[in-house]
């Protein structure tokens, strides 16, 4: 097993498109790391650069502390699982699984034995004689994983491995993948555009946008405390509420409403400052009676999400969405108070898009060195502003 690091990696394609821009990343040994972002954000280019399938314009790739920037893919000790699995259609499952060993000139009997051992551990033993085309998508995916395992790679690179599976199979494959990774404890970098996959699988994750990493951290941290408006907007199954607000003495004025300043951010908020308040619909509750720190409004839209309802409230110059239990039976036109959970209210600087935090913003555990540096930097700004305010 090995750790993976990327230093100031830049990849510029012909035509001047910068897929990666001075990117730094450190993935720890044995970690399940997810790269998340919208399409075209450079996550796949980053993965392919780590694999050696793309040659970076500048910067370094280190695997297990060794600089492999100029090493061909085969010499990096990695295995890659592609979106289409890339199983060779003319070979049997057994030959496919044994293929990495064939490249290394392992004798046939020996490599087929290794293949059948791996296949048995993944529940593929009865399919060894079949061709990939005769298997279901989920089985093909397991064959691709089995092939990666036989290669005895120190790092697994997975490029959207679940996106070709249908919804139900994807859930099964997800559980399978997570357990397999825990069992093998192999460093795994996983590219996906599906945040639920990243949240479910990853020990840590990075959210990317246009060639740069916007936040690195454990999934819960990224979900609950996004560093910036991009991450805040990208994460979450339902779009986050973004509300224009102005700082008044001790409170935030949102439209005609006032809410308390979230604890820990007071230092960064001088009176009169324009800010963006963000709160996820799942952190907003509805109340029949007037509430302090609540938004009064009438229900203009109810969307059924299955287990929840997404309710849109309008009133006092504010539109806010709340996710409520389906049993609440909210009706169109009802007058309600939307109450954001004060613990979960986030405040952003609308001009930079960065989250405003106070001095006591707790550093999330297990964060890569550069992310810590970034935190400290923002903290320092907060302190400076706080000092000026005091």
């Amino acid at each position: 097993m090995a750790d993976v690091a990327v230093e100031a990696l830049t990849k510029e394609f012909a035509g001047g498109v910068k897929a990666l821009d001075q990117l730094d990343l450190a993935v720890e040994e044995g970690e399940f790391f997810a790269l998340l972002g919208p399409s075209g954000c450079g996550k796949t280019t980053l993965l392919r650069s780590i694999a050696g399938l793309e040659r970076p314009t500048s910067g370094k790739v280190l695997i297990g502390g060794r600089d492999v920037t100029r090493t061909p893919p085969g010499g990096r000790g990695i295995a890659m699982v592609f979106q289409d699995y890339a199983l060779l259609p003319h070979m049997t499952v057994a030959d496919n699984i044994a293929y990495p060993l064939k490249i290394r000139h392992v004798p046939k009997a020996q490599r087929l034995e290794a293949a059948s051992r791996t296949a048995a551990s993944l529940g593929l033993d009865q399919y060894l004689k079949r061709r990939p085309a005769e298997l279901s998508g989920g089985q093909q995916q397991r064959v691709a994983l089995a092939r990666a395992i036989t290669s005895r790679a120190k790092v697994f690179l997975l490029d959207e491995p679940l996106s070709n599976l249908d919804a139900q199979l994807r859930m099964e494959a997800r559980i399978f993948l997570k357990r397999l990774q825990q069992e093998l404890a192999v460093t795994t970098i996983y590219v996906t555009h599906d945040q639920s996959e990243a949240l479910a699988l990853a020990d840590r994750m990075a959210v990317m946008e246009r060639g740069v990493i916007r936040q690195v951290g454990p999934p819960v941290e990224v979900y609950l405390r996004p560093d910036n408006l991009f991450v805040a907007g990208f994460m979450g199954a339902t779009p986050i509420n973004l509300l224009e607000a102005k700082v008044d003495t001790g409170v935030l004025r949102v439209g005609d409403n006032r809410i308390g300043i979230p604890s820990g951010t007071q230092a960064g908020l001088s009176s009169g400052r324009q800010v963006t308040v963000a709160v996820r619909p799942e952190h907003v509750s509805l109340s029949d009676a007037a509430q302090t720190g609540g938004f009064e409004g009438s229900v203009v839209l109810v969307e059924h999400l299955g287990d929840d309802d997404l309710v849109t409230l309008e009133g006092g110059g504010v539109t806010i969405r709340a996710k409520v239990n389906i049993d609440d039976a909210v009706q169109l036109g009802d007058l309600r108070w939307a109450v954001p959970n004060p613990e979960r209210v986030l405040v952003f600087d609308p001009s930079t898009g960065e989250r405003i935090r106070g001095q006591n913003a707790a550093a999330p555990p297990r964060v890569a060195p550069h992310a810590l540096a970034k935190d400290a930097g923002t903290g320092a700004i907060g302190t400076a502003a706080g000092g000026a305010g005091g």
Partner: protein
Amino acid sequence: MTVIGIPVEHSGDGQLDVAPPSNRGKPEWARAVAVRSIWYVLGVVVAAFFALPMLWLVTAPFEAHPGFDVGLSHLTLSNFVDVFHNPNALSSLYNSLILSLLTMLIVVGASALAAYALSRVNLPGRDVMLYVLLLLSSVVSGTAAMVPLFLLVFDMHLINTDAGVVLVLAAGLLPAGIFILKDFMDSIPRSYEESARVFGASPLRMLWDVVGPSVRPGLAVIGVWAVVNVWGNFLIPFILLRSPGLTPAAVEIYSFYTSGGQANLRLISTFSLLYTLPVVVIYLLVQRRYGFRFYGGIKG
């Protein structure tokens, strides 16, 4: 109204009906029969036009005195005995086989390597080059370049050698071979090779393990096509080969005359049958193994 001999009834608005409603039934029916008969007669004539030479090819070798008619009045195998006793007949078939196989090996091998490189490396002007090559290839082994070709092969001291013929024929076939195989290779997902590369495969290994097997139908098509082309080529071996011991069947067949200077139909017909059979056999074999259907992409 009829569409290819099938009468089409029009009912309802009556606008399309040509015949007046009063005498509709019988003439309509009669016309359909007439039209259909004409089609059948035409069909038979066309079929006969193509079938009769084939029939002649199959019957004449077994006929004691073949003429230009089809029939089996005096069944015999003596024609075959004569062919086998002819000093050059069998060896010319062998020569054809050698020339075809050598050319096929060069064409398949070289066009596979070239097509792979051209498919994977984006050279500037690649497509234009391929089209120009394809256009010129018909000139290379054609009549127009006969004299320069002869001079070139002469200067290379390859006149009257198999190598000279094989090189010229292969050069003429390669552009089309590359063109077709490149198309096959373009349709292989890149991830196949990339996954092999990640596991440490060299380019040659990828060609052998990944690309080759995926384009096997394409290789078969190119191979058969090269063999058939060389097998039937008269001009190039006729110009470049001098000694009778080297000439292939396509050239040899022109030497079958009777002592009176007339075409020896007994020898020609029997030899023609022997000359045709290998091509038919190859076609059937490949057809059974791959089928000549169009491969528009390879599914994993």
